């Protein structure tokens, strides 16, 4: 099953979820109507039996009262709708909203706590390796159980949450296993499904809440009335309302019961898939098996304190609550046996004390993962010439298959790339100020004249502090090898996401000024700008709606712009580029022709490519898959793969929401 099939399965599951939910809602509406009917009949009996004459004519007893049904149905549906809509609104903040509601604390990237920085490293490594932007990481300080979650609605706004218990009890391999499991949820489209479930469930929950509130208010009022004067009918009226409240509460509970069953049914299968994916990504079954065993050995297991966790229980790595019927996750032993068939069922004793952090030193961590000695890691990075053509064989099918997955070699590549980045620059990316400095510095031109212009423009529009800091680190930046530049930007993304609205505006303007200082856009500048701004823009401009393209012609035009950029980037000879473009556009639309609309010059039209990419990012998954395939055809055309092509492909994948794993772009 590849990424695209996973997404489609997730969509089908969502459909199932909606159908089951609709069924539950219908049941509830009927129940509410039934209750209201009983109450009405009871009330009618009272008025008939009591001495007080009622002006309204007696209702004859039949099971169906249209207006009563419509009223109660409308009220019920309104309540459910309101609950769902509100939850959806509150979850529209994405993963951060979920993480904060669970009491998570955003981990500061400049943290000096070795356990926290180890976690950040594991997450960063996996993000760079798989091609998604480094996610924000939240820590649930008060939770001692071993558990983790991933929340968000797209891979590029995913958020990872981890309990304190994880940091204390798991070693690096096990942590990596758990993270791999969570990352697979991100890739499989599970997060969106989970959030939808949370939203729908909340609607049913609201009924039981409103029932509770009615009960409470009535019992207070009834108490008052009774003391003041005992009027039979008044008391009975109060009791009637009390019963209504109670009934609503009970009905709501029934709804919750069914909803939990639905959650459990939908979630459990996905958990097995995620476990399997984790093993596939790391090729290290011991990691995730070890984590599962430790959960078994820990008294607290994976349980969580926070009452809010109930709503999000299906998001987590392990069962957050006891109880088989509503278990959102398969039993531990079964999960372990699927990974390790010979597991006997003996769990290791796990205590709360921190395991020895023998791998706490950053340098030795990287070295251990990469089998480089410590001295090699700290040595100066050797700059490689940007025009180096790596004779890397490009396998089109494999590339499409690898979207949204990970292999150990990608992880190793990520580790190697990170080890080539000097520690001072890594530290620089950890806070928002330093992250801005990083991005500006990466855009400084090698040519001294252009650089002077860039610095002058920054002097006018940025704080003096920024330039001072840039000067401090300039020599380190100058020596960075080409393959580490974009990963460095990816590392800076989480800190950049913390820029406030105004800071972002200033940053964006400075970025554009730096790029246009030489009145020309280079490929690297385009890639950097695309990587940085497209993600930040989504953060600061949440009101932008998806604009589905109107027609196939638009899609083809956008794809043409994009592929022409790719073709020119990968072929030195312009004729060859045109042929490549022709071939790849053919795979997309057989009738397409290289005509006057195509860019005739040998220069890449970055503006058009950017526009095309934005348009294509709003299309359906099917179209995106075909566009990706067309890109792959283009790259494969001449049998040679240049680093530029691979970098561009990765950025294209990122823009389309198709995470592309990190491959070797420069020959060793």
């Amino acid at each position, binding site marked *: 099953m590849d990424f695209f099939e996973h997404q489609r399965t997730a969509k089908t599951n969502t459909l199932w979820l909606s159908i089951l939910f609709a069924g539950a809602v219908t049941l509830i509406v009927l129940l509410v109507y039934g209750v209201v009917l009983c109450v009405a009949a009871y009330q009618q009996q009272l008025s008939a039996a009591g001495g007080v004459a009622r002006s309204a004519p007696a209702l004859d007893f039949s099971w169906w009262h249209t207006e009563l049904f419509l009223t109660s149905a409308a009220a019920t549906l309104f309540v459910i709708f309101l609950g769902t809509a509100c939850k959806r609104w509150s979850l529209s903040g994405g993963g951060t909203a979920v993480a904060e509601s669970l009491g998570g604390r955003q981990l500061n990237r400049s943290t000096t706590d070795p356990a926290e920085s180890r976690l950040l490293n594991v997450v960063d490594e996996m993000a760079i390796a798989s091609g998604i932007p480094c996610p924000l990481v939240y820590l649930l300080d008060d939770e001692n159980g071993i558990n983790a979650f991933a929340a968000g609605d797209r891979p590029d706004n995913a958020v990872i949450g981890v309990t304190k218990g994880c940091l204390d009890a798991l070693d690096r391999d096990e942590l990596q296993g758990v993270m791999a499991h969570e990352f697979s949820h991100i890739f499989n489209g599970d997060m969106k499904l989970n959030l939808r479930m949370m939203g729908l469930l909340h609607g049913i929950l609201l009924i039981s809440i409103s029932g509770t509130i009615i009960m409470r208010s009535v019992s207070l009022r009834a108490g008052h009335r009774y003391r003041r004067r005992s009027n039979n009918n008044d008391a009975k009226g109060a009791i009637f309302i009390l019963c209504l409240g109670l009934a609503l509460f009970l009905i709501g509970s029934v709804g919750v019961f069914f909803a939990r069953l639905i959650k459990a049914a939908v979630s459990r299968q996905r958990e097995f898939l995620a476990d399997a994916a984790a093993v596939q990504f790391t090729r290290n079954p011991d990691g995730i098996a070890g984590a599962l065993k430790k959960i078994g050995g820990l008294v607290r297991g994976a349980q969580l304190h926070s009452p809010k966790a109930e709503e999000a229980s299906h998001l987590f790595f392990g069962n957050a609550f006891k109880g088989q019927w509503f278990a959102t996750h398969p039993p531990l032993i079964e999960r372990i046996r699927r990974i390790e068939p010979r597991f006997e069922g003996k769990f290791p004793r796990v205590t709360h004390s921190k395991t020895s952090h023998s791998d706490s030193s950053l340098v030795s961590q990287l070295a251990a993962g990469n089998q480089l000695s410590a001295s090699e890691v700290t040595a100066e990075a050797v700059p490689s010439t940007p025009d180096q053509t790596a004779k890397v064989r490009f396998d089109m099918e494999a590339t499409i298959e690898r979207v949204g997955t990970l292999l150990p070699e990608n992880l190793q590549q990520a580790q190697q790339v990170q080890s080539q980045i000097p520690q001072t620059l890594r530290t620089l990316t950890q806070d928002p100020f330093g992250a801005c400095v990083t991005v500006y510095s990466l855009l400084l031109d090698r040519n001294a004249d252009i650089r002077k212009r860039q610095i002058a423009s920054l002097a006018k529009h940025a704080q003096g502090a920024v330039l001072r*800091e840039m000067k401090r680190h300039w020599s380190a930046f100058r020596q960075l090898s080409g393959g580490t530049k974009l990963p460095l930007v990816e590392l800076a993304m989480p800190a950049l996401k913390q820029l406030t609205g105004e800071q972002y505006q200033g940053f964006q303007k400075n970025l554009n000024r730096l790029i246009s200082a030489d009145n020309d856009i280079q490929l690297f500048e385009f890639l950097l700008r695309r990587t940085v701004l497209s993600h930040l823009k989504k953060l600061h401009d949440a009101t932008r709606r998806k604009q589905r393209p109107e027609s196939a012609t638009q899609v083809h035009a956008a794809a043409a712009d994009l592929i022409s950029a790719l073709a020119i980037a990968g072929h030195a000879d312009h004729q060859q580029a045109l042929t490549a473009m022709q071939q790849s556009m053919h795979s997309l639309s057989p009738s397409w022709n290289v005509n006057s609309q195509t860019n005739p010059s040998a220069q890449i039209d970055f503006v058009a490519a950017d526009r095309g990419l934005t348009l294509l990012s709003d299309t359906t998954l099917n179209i995106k898959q075909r566009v990706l395939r067309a890109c792959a055809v283009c790259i494969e055309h001449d049998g040679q793969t240049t680093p530029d092509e691979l970098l561009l492909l990765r950025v294209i994948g990122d823009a389309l929401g198709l995470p592309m794993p990190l491959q070797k772009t420069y020959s060793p």
Partner: protein
Amino acid sequence: MNLLIWIVVAAAVIGVFLIVLLINIYNRLVQLRNRFENSYSQIDVQLKRRYDLIPNLVETAKAYLKHERETLEAVIAARNQAVSANNKAAESPSDPAAIQAMIGAESALGGSIGRLFALMENYPDLKGNENMLSVQEELSSTENRIGFARQAYNDSVMSYNARRESFPDILLAGIYGFQEAVYWLIEDATERETPQVDF
């Protein structure tokens, strides 16, 4: 009797609507408050870095400024004061009193460090000392980050205060206990100067 049912249903519906509205207002304010508390934690990280640098600064200076003990002691005292004020503020950044105390302690610290640097002008040996230069560079780089983080903090405080003072949030802010957040404004002359940087 029909009327009674209508009334109950209508009341329930309105009741639910109000409850949901109240919850939403609360959640929105909580979200914005979380954001500025988060911004404070950015400042906190950088402040701690600065506080850790100061003992180094004082130690290096001690060897040269043998007769200026008072100035040095003042710096250490101000630093300790700021550390404890920061710890309190970091625990509850939404407490205006804690933030005010923090701002006060920080400006006192800034003042005493300023006096130390002014004094150092008379001791060129100290000024040129390698360790001193490196500590000063670290300090200035940390200052840069503090300034940036403060700006972010003020931005998020502004969003929170604006929302809190709007309608209908203002009606409930008092009940919920959402207090007005404090801005951190400092006159920082160094931020205004245009550097003559060339590289």
